[in-house]
């Protein structure tokens, strides 16, 4: 942040230092982004998680934390694990459909061979 504070420091009501760990990933024009991660993880945990990562991976981590936090706020019981569960169900269903379709093809192929 060249001027002003990042949304994290605004939320936390503190000065935004030049080397603020949050400012590259929580710009002041998107306050909801930080408030979501703060609500679920807490600013201290988010700061620690980002600090532990190489700089080039922090943006990806911040994005994923935001997404997961929003999922958890929207669904406090399952969060994004609900999406994982749904995907597993859908994959299972698709695999069954594929197996059934292949079985039908196999039957028809055998019938066709017998008819030759």
């Amino acid at each position, binding site marked *: 942040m060249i001027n002003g504070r990042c949304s994290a420091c605004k939320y936390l009501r503190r000065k935004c230092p030049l080397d603020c760990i949050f400012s590259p990933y929580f710009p002041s024009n*998107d306050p*909801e*982004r930080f408030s979501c991660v703060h*609500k*679920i*993880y*807490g600013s*201290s*945990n988010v700061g620690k*998680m980002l600090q*532990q*990562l190489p700089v080039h*991976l922090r943006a*990806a*981590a911040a*994005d*994923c*934390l*935001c*997404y*997961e936090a*929003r*999922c*958890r706020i*929207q*669904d*406090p*019981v*399952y*969060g*994004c*694990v*609900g*999406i*994982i569960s*749904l*995907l*597993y169900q*859908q*994959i299972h*269903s*698709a*695999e069954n*459909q*594929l197996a*059934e*379709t*292949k079985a*039908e*093809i196999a*039957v*028809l*192929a055998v*019938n*066709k061979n017998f008819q030759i």
Partner: protein
Amino acid sequence: MRSHEPRSSSSCAACKFLKRRCIPNCIFAPYFRSDEPKKFAKVHKVFGASNVSKILTEVPEEQREDTVNSLAYEAEARLRDPVYGCIGAIALLQRKMVELQFDLSIARARLARYTANYSSSPILNDRSSMTTLSEFPVACGVLIESFGQNSSELSQDGLMNDFSQFPYTF
């Protein structure tokens, strides 16, 4: 004189970790048994005890066990993959789903070619297997090329059907 109130020998894992007395109506005790210390340690590391407590108090009691289990799953995923966490798993599953949809469309096209020659087959009269791919919700079909940082509202349907907010594909 020191109180003779006995120390609880059955502190839950959370209170043991936090080094505090486990009170009778401890919110953590039913879900963080003392024989599973790592479960709370992981959840605490990612979310913090205070945040977990808040989340648990916000959900109905009958859903707290599921809540704790999903938090533990997320924490485990985040500790295993500090960058992508659960999102990495979601992206992989989405990719798998897209591959399956593709395989299914190929298989159904092939089946259609066979059935064109067998219009009287009893198998073909069963339309249940001839449903289109539209039966699969969009949730499993959308590959996202780029990530935008729009913070639009995500309804439950939005989470399932609108992966335009989804960070990454792998």
